[in-house]
């Protein structure tokens, strides 16, 4: 009973976090599902989003504006991966890892910028670095904070709704369609005059923009940013995407509208948050989450394969 009550009490927080990570998952969806590229940049670009937002706020930028600045910087991170992948012809996974590595340093430098604000800074480093940066809601008018989970949930919902509408519109445009074609069949796309390199770079930029934006919201929600924050984030994103996808296909057997599919990505993220909260409330160490996440992703990714295998076996028996 106590357990149930504590789960119920944590629901607004679960929803808020699930929605913020839902935006992150939408970014992952753009590369993983639409462009057919597994982009590992996101592990670092989400931290870039956190860092940029926190530092912007510390420097007095409006917290809402700070999130948009994070979006733009996130796009630059995506452009870096795109440059590695299309211009230098490095395979996508490796390109993402290289970006991730570069961004680690860049994130440290961004967070190091806070040292210029300290009046009696003792640091005499040429380029100051920092693994953390904090901006508390007591000092700044943050748009979301874990201290008010209900309003964080509402803000998260508004962001998600606007972003889904934006993506729905964008992927219906001529340019958006060329991105979809690039992911679906690059040979055909080029034969129809689509610059697939440009489409890939833009898709990576767009994706990492949303990832960084999610980072910006999460930074405000948790009151700061931390260099270790993004480690393994791609798995959380993938978990949300595959949980949402499997659910969506189960409910809409004839294929769903694009906006519905996007909504299910966010639903996937909400379910993931719920599982995470469940693990914590049960009393397990949060470090178990990574193993659990990996298992969830593996199960959901392999489920469609097992389905066809058993169907084939059944058909054989019938014959």
């Amino acid at each position: 009973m106590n357990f149930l009550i504590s789960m119920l009490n944590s629901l607004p927080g679960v929803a808020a976090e699930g929605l913020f990570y839902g935006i992150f998952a939408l970014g992952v969806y753009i590369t993983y599902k639409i462009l057919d590229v597994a982009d590992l940049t996101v592990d670092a670009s989400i931290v870039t989003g956190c860092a940029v937002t926190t530092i912007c706020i510390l420097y007095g930028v409006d917290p809402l504006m700070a999130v948009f600045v994070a979006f733009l910087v996130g796009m630059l991170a995506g452009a870096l991966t795109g440059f590695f992948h299309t211009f230098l012809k490095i395979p996508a996974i490796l390109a993402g890892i290289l970006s991730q590595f570069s961004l680690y340093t860049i994130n440290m430098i961004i967070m190091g910028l806070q040292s210029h604000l300290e009046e009696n800074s003792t640091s005499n480093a040429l380029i100051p670095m920092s693994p953390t940066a904090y901006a508390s809601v007591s000092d700044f008018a943050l748009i979301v904070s874990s201290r008010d989970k209900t309003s964080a949930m509402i803000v998260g919902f508004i962001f998600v709704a606007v972003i889904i509408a934006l993506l729905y519109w964008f992927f219906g445009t001529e340019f958006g369609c060329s991105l979809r074609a690039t992911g679906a069949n690059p040979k055909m796309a080029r034969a129809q005059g689509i610059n697939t390199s440009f489409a890939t770079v833009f898709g990576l930029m767009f994706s990492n923009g949303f990832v960084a934006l999610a980072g910006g919201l999460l930074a405000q929600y948790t009151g700061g940013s931390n260099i270790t924050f993004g480690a393994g984030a791609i798995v959380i994103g993938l978990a949300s995407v595959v949980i949402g996808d499997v659910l969506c296909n189960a409910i809409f057997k004839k294929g769903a509208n694009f906006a519905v599919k996007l909504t299910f990505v966010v639903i996937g993220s909400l379910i993931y948050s719920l599982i995470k909260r469940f693990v914590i409330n049960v009393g397990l160490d949060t470090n178990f989450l990574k193993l659990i996440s990996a298992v969830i992703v593996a199960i959901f990714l392999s489920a469609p394969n097992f389905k066809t295998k058993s169907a084939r076996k059944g058909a054989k028996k019938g014959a």
Partner: protein
Amino acid sequence: MLELKNVCKTFYAGTVNERVALNDVSLTLNDGDVVTIIGGNGAGKSTLLNMVSGTLPVDAGQVLIDGVDITNYPEHKRAKFLGRVFQDPMTGTAASMGIDENLALALRRGKRRGLGWGITKKERAEFCERLSEFGLGLETRITAKVGLLSGGQRQVLTLLMATLKKPKLLLLDEHTAALDPKTAKLVLEATDKIIRENNLTAMMITHNMNDAITYGNRLIMMMDGRIIYDVSGEEKKSLTVPDLLKKFEEYSGGSFSNDRMMLSK
């Protein structure tokens, strides 16, 4: 309209697997030429088309369309001049997108793709009308995913996509080879109809000598990366399959018995 000047292409140059695919090939197509291309495996037919489409860069030589040197144009930039249908029905269409969406992508070939709608209601109605001409019933399932279509249906769709915006040159790379004979005939007839109605210039690779003789006004035979026989007009009309085999024998000498296997009647 199309001019190839001394085009060379070698694969795996400098290795034991070195293979000369095109050896100093020059070719000029006139407006309205419909050229069928025959030759054994490895003769350089597909490479020739890939040089035109820009799928692969040339090692040496020049490619011109209507006097414009497109040798250094990337594939997507050349697409505005070209309509292409591939051997593999999977290649020409995006399986996860609708029939209408595929056609809408093709309609915008060579145009800047901005933030206008990717497809409009008016266009969809037009697509239905164009599709109905083929009598495959595709117009009744215009929003269906292309992945659900058969190989023949996909080739017809690719053909329509290639010619929806009139291309300067239509490239057909053995586009009926992966289909069953009945479907192949249907697709070939559809191709012929589209070429005639739109007065297209086209290059068609085929393994079928009868088709090579029946269709088009000009025939090219390739061997070992060279054009060994180029015939058009009345002379082509009077060609027969034995004539072609004889020609083939003349040029190939000893290797004939091997290569003949590759050229089905």
